């Protein structure tokens, strides 16, 4: 039998009773934590290098190419300040991170079927957000930086010492560039450029070859979110390792 009626207004915030707020909260903690840490490192302007290890937050060091820039700011420019805007733009325009920050920081929407906190509706890609359409150009820069980070990893294994160096740092660097490569080469824009833009994968030899590349990028792209987070935390871990090593808080474990 029907029980007493419940006067619940349909159209309120949400009817969901599960922990829909957990995911946006974790994203705020993760991205916010990394944002605060990297900002601190940008202005700390120290401990980017420890022995063979060059932190990814300060590599490559571009200060020598733009010495005139120092005259325009009242603080000492760090290598991190010059290089970080490029990977930052790559990640800010990334199709995965757009989901992460629109849900968590803009609450548009915070979770599925949950009304956002803002009284403003999402206006579309307008103003500064038109930059989101230039993701592929930030991808090109990210690939360039990735090449340098692979070189830094070779240095961590003793490329310039003349003999093989195998230490904990080397493995951390290797893990980091592998994760960064998985993230970069699983990019949605790259997936489009290598073959996604084609309508016919069987029409000629060129499109057949591009289909195979597209399949591989698609495989990486399937878990773009996982690569995005893993590579973010690996950058964090490697930088902490280099910083602590340089400060003298920890020592590298050398096998060779």
């Amino acid at each position: 039998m029907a029980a007493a009626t419940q006067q619940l207004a349909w159209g309120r915030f949400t009817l969901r009773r599960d922990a829909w707020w957990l995911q946006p909260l974790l994203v705020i903690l993760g991205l916010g934590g990394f944002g605060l840490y990297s900002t601190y490192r940008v202005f700390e302007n120290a401990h980017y290098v420890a022995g063979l290890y060059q932190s990814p937050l300060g590599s490559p060091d571009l200060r020598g190419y733009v010495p005139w820039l120092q005259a325009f700011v009242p603080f000492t420019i760090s290598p991190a300040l010059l290089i970080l805007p490029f990977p930052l733009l790559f990640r800010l325009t990334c199709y995965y991170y757009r989901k992460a920050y629109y849900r968590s920081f803009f609450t548009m929407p915070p979770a599925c079927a949950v009304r956002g906190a803002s009284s403003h509706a999402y206006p579309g890609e307008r103003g500064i957000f038109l930059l989101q359409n230039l993701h592929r150009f930030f991808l090109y820069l990210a690939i360039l930086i990735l090449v340098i980070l692979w070189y830094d990893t070779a240095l961590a294994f003793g490329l310039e010492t003349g003999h093989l160096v195998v230490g904990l740092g080397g493995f951390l660097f290797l893990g980091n560039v592998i994760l960064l490569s998985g993230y970069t080469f699983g990019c949605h824009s790259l997936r489009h450029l290598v073959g996604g833009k084609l309508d016919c994968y069987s029409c000629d030899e060129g499109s057949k070859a591009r289909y195979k590349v597209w399949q591989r990028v698609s495989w990486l792209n399937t878990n773009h979110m996982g690569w995005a987070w893993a590579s973010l935390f690996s950058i964090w871990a490697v930088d902490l390792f280099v910083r602590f090593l340089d400060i003298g808080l920890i020592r590298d474990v050398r096998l060779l």
Partner: protein
Amino acid sequence: MAQRGNVTMRLWRGTAAGGQFVDYQVAREEGMVVLDAVHAVQAQQANDLSVRWNCKAGKCGSCSAEVNGYPRLMCMTRLDLFDPGEPITVAPLKTFPLVKDLVTNVRWNFESAKRIPPLKPGPLTAEEQRKGEFQMMQQDVDRIQEFRKCIECFLCQDTCHVLRDAQDTDKFFGPRQMIRLANLEMHPKDSADRIPMIKKEAGVGMCNITKCCTEVCPEHIRITDNGIIPLKERVVDRYYDPVTMLLNALRPGNTKLR
């Protein structure tokens, strides 16, 4: 283990003019889905309860509703998914105008679909002319086959915040129509150019990639990754990337640039 006893079904009763949630007690049976419980209410306690359904097998897309606030097919949502002591709330799709109880008017989806130009077959190849039919290779079929799984339940349209919260139906066709557009645009035999429409009339720029459409899709179509984002990238080729724009200008008539 089977759960015994009653379950409280908290169903929305009313019309666009107003209404409320009403609690009904239903005997719980093993393997019961939400639609079974709603039918039990309709058969035994509220003969005037309006609910839309057809196949009860997750393929007709008729019984879409919001179960405990989450867009789902009622026929594919088992009662044992939820805490047995808690009432199960069933509300109509919030995005669309309410007709009565759990039934909404989803006509707008069909109206926007009508505005999308249908497949426009290009010329046959010499081989196809000889055989007198189109030929498609498996790798070309695979990608668009995913889009053809759509059962038009409109759960993606319901959860899209652009349509749901802002009711911006004049600016964005919604995820369902993006999948329709992707299916046509990526078809190797299609020769129509829908990119200007995708940017302007269909409003692909209104999607901010929050992926709720993908999350709720009962057919597990990767709507955002495989449909909307590839369409956005094609719009970038045409309107935002100076390199591809230049190449386009140098190759007039070639709208499907490689």
